[in-house]
């Protein structure tokens, strides 16, 4: 059942991707684009299959890193958003700092993080967290701000506490917005993990990719990208499924009216 639905939902995008791949394959052959510049999909596939044992561990390492980072980033993001929402004065003071945090170039932060936290997993998680938490914070804060005023009015009239208003109304009302932020964060988490490997790692797709790049193996670079993309798509689909499950009642409500 479920698999059929997934195919029905994503079938058309498979078709589009297939078309792109065909077009790509054709162009590389017609214009004889050299492999070092843009390898043909078949070349990438061959290398992906042949090199599997070599990068398997890279893949696992990056996946773990991305998931850990996303989890922490989302938790921190939600927490920050909620705290800021409940304490408007703190929000006004701290919000600009959040924006600033997004503008510290990682190459500058990297040495400091390594110096403070060593070459372990800690500084990498910090980098991913930094990348992931911002979309969650912005989306959640905006979602919380836009609660239905009529329902808010009712809650206030009957004397709901700030906490109750938050839990029973604002948070649930903001859920769609939160998921919107989550989708953005989830998408960034994998790239965040790859970037975080620049902080010095001995394995990971990022490492594999820079190695491939510096030894001019463009086909391997593309194998790395393909895996990054697949990883990212899986994450996205998981988030979307979660969204559909959680917001089921509401979606149905809307559908009926269509």
């Amino acid at each position: 059942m479920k698999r059929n639905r997934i195919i029905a939902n994503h079938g058309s995008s498979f078709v589009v991707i297939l078309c792109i791949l065909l077009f790509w394959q054709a162009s590389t052959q017609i214009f004889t684009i050299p492999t070092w510049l843009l390898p043909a999909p078949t070349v990438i596939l061959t290398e992906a299959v042949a090199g599997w044992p070599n990068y398997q561990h890279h893949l696992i390492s990056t996946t773990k890193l991305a998931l850990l980072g996303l989890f922490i980033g989302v938790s921190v993001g939600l927490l920050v958003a909620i705290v800021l929402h409940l304490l408007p004065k703190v929000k006004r003071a701290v919000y600009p700092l959040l924006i600033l945090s997004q503008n510290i170039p990682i190459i500058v932060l990297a040495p400091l993080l390594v110096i403070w936290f060593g070459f372990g997993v800690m500084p990498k998680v910090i980098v991913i967290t930094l990348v992931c938490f911002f979309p969650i914070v912005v989306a959640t804060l905006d979602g919380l701000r836009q609660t239905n005023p009529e329902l808010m009015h009712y809650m206030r009239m009957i004397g709901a506490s700030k906490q109750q208003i938050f839990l029973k109304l604002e948070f649930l009302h903001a859920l769609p917005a939160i998921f919107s932020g989550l989708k953005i964060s989830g998408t960034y988490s994998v790239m965040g993990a790859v970037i975080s490997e620049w902080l010095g790692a001995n394995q990971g797709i990022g490492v594999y990719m820079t190695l491939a790049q510096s030894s001019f193996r463009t086909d391997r670079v593309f194998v790395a990208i393909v895996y990054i993309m697949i990883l990212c798509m899986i994450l996205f689909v998981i988030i979307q499924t979660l969204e559909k499950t959680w917001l089921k009642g509401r979606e149905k409500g809307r559908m009926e009216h269509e």
Partner: protein
Amino acid sequence: EGINQTEGMESVSIVLDWTPNTNHTGLYVAEAKGYFEEEGLDVDIILPGESGADQFVASGQADFGISSQQAVTEARIQDIPLVSVAAIIQNNTSGFASPVDKGISSPADYANRTYGGYGAPIESAFLGALMEEENASVDDVEIMNIGNTDFFTAFERDVDFIWIYYGWTGIEAEVRGIELKVQYLNEYSEELDYHTPVITTNERMIKDKSEVIKRFLSAVSKGYQDAITKPEESASLLLDAVPDLDADLVHASQVWLADKYQADAEQWGIQSETVWNNFANWMLNNDLLDEELDIQEAFTNDYLPQ
């Protein structure tokens, strides 16, 4: 800190300057053949990421690093406690390269051509130094910043010549069958024949753990000896450690580099005061340094095996 008591082994770390390549072969050979172990060292080779090794080494986060004479010189001027303890390759193997069909055979031909660089002032100083030898002026060169764009890509677009390390990029061109013309820096100017790359450590290591430095360099030195005498085997060891590298490139590069590591020096790793002086003065004269370098602090041969 850093001492692994249980096995009586001392842990040390070394941060590379770039992704692993044939400049680092000696390290991997020493690791693979147990030279480090013989010295009681447990060595952790760390890939650096974008920002290089120097800050990690200087801050003591890592014990050793790979750098270049130029970087150490600039770092010392900024009071960064970085010390070069061995030259991995005696001479400067870099040069300005262009495909043959660009028709560039000497620095005089740079005039009215486009140079692709990364925008550092030192590049135009190098160009100027070479061109002056032939009474040409660097002002006639179109200098274009190509950022991280790689060598082969750059030539596809407007760029005529680029600064490369022959041992890696030049060899890759050979592997691909692209014929290059290269004007090596050290062919035109003695001042530019500096050591690159070099192994660095920090002042704290020198003060507190000079023994460790000695043991480390002794092992590394054996590693590079092997790389000099048995390039094919060493290349294979490097590939075993870093299988993601391209095998053809590594082997070819290793063979090319074998006699460059030590070159005409009396021993691998030896650094020459003249070389350090020449280059620092050249930089100073070209306004690339704010003050004079104290050579004695910048490098030492004291820890190389006797």
